[in-house]
């Protein structure tokens, strides 16, 4: 028999789990390597948590217990919405979506890998923010399961909206718009300041935002415990809306 060369064809896909795991590991490394992304996903939430816990500017009794759910909501938004929209816009610009979508990974594998990486970043964020809060004197209470459910639904809602934004705009415009939305929602979404303190005109619309549902729900879950049904439903509606609109407008190249 003729000796087969090293390049001789031996085609075939790796198992789906291996493909997605490799993709998720790559996406996670890239996110943790990106300085601007880390500023958004970790540095700003930590800074907000520490500064407003220490400085007595908020009119609440237990500042850390009030702030932690807010900054977790902010962290989820920064990863699932802002970071996701920006990364997706540039991945498309660089032809990565097109190229990797045409390998055995496939488009669904690419989305799954990105989602897994996103959840990985969120796990890091929640752990780090929780440790900082403990250092500031926070004592855990309430429903962890409820909080996790809210985070998952919030992630679904924000990533749908992030992909929608990335589908509508060019990469640079996505970058600008995603940062602007981040800033606005940071102020009006109940992250640091209670929504009830907002002027009446702003308060109505602000209460319908996904960030408000997330921070509000997390405050309830980590406060008295239990399931904040209204917030969960609101996030679910946003998730369905975002995913539907994103899949209608998304472009792979």
């Amino acid at each position, binding site marked *: 028999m003729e000796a087969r060369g090293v390049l001789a064809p031996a085609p*075939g896909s790796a198992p789906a789990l291996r493909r997605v795991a490799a993709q998720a590991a790559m996406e996670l490394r890239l996110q943790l390597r990106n300085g601007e992304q880390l500023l958004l996903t970790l540095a700003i939430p930590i800074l907000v948590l520490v500064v407003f816990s220490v400085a007595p500017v908020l009119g609440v009794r237990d500042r850390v217990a009030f702030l932690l759910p807010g900054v977790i909501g902010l962290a989820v938004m920064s990863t699932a919405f802002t970071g996701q929209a920006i990364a997706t816009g540039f991945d498309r610009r660089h032809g990565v979506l097109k190229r990797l979508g*045409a390998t055995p990974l496939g488009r669904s594998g690419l989305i799954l890998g990105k989602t897994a990486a996103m959840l990985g970043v969120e796990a890091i964020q929640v752990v780090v923010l929780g440790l900082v809060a403990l250092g500031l004197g926070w004592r855990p209470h309430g429903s962890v399961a409820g909080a996790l459910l809210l985070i998952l639904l919030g992630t679904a809602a924000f990533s749908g909206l992030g992909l929608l934004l990335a589908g509508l705009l060019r990469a640079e415009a996505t970058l600008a718009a995603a940062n602007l939305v981040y800033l606005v929602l940071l102020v009006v979404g109940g992250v640091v300041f209670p929504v009830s303190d907002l002027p009446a005109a702003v308060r109505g619309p602000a209460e319908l935002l996904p960030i408000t549902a997330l921070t509000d729900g997390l405050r309830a879950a980590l406060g008295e415990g239990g399931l904040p049904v209204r917030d969960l439903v609101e996030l679910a509606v946003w998730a369905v809306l975002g995913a539907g609109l994103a899949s209608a407008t998304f472009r792979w190249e």
Partner: protein
Amino acid sequence: MAGVALEVTDLVKRYGPRAALDGVSLSAGLGAVTAILGPNGAGKTTLVEICEGFRRQDTGQVRVLGLDPGREGRRLRPLIGVMLQQGGIYPAARPREMLELVAAYYANPLDPAALLRRLGLLEVAGVPCRRLSGGQRQRLSLALAIVGRPAMVFLDEPTTGLDPQARQAAWELISELRRDGVTVILTTHYLEEAERLADRVVIIDRGRVVAQGAPAELTEAGARRRLEFRARPGLDLAGLAAALPSGHVAREVSPGHYVVEGEIGPRVVAEVATWCADRGVLPGDLRIESRSLEDVFLELTGRELRS
């Protein structure tokens, strides 16, 4: 050729009023290297991207390894390797991790480190891809196309922008792919590349196939060739013209430089030699000029290949 790897029939693709592909039909043999040759804007990339499943044709049929890329992409993707003309690489990733990532999608990948070494990328394996030169990025793209040990690879202008040394390495790799039984489809606007690597050349222009065949077939078909030689100036060519079959023309284009134009067969060469011998002349620099693919292309399309 053992079988057919690619079969394209009456392919049409329009972008607005402009037809990028205007009824293209071609075939490529299994285990062979097929070069799709044409100037920029001829429709090469559109053609290849339909075969790869990136685009859908308006009408016409494509079969890649017996599969329809538009509808059977999931089954086709593991079998083929794709090198895009540009893009497809995370700028912040390093060549080593990028290659390892893509290798992890496949069941029996090549060793990424060996491939990096082979393509001269080992010393930049840890540098973010955004800092690679154009040629390095090109070589990484080539590595990404073959790391999954595909049965068939599509290389879209694989050596554009490479320096001569890197081009040589890429050519050797393509020859080795062929030797190891991989079917190769490559687009190029370099004639030398097509002549040197391809078993079969398909020339396309303005969205149409203008000729296809083995390089030798194309350059020989309907050839009007020239025979040239040097001898002392001022020979009387009247006797030669009479001895040659009709339709042949003999001229002294510059002093001492003689040209015979027409179908140059063995008889014509013998007649020229006899005529020289009768005059006691030894023809120097005698050569028969065959057409290059460039001549063929120019004849068929009236256009320079490298426009």
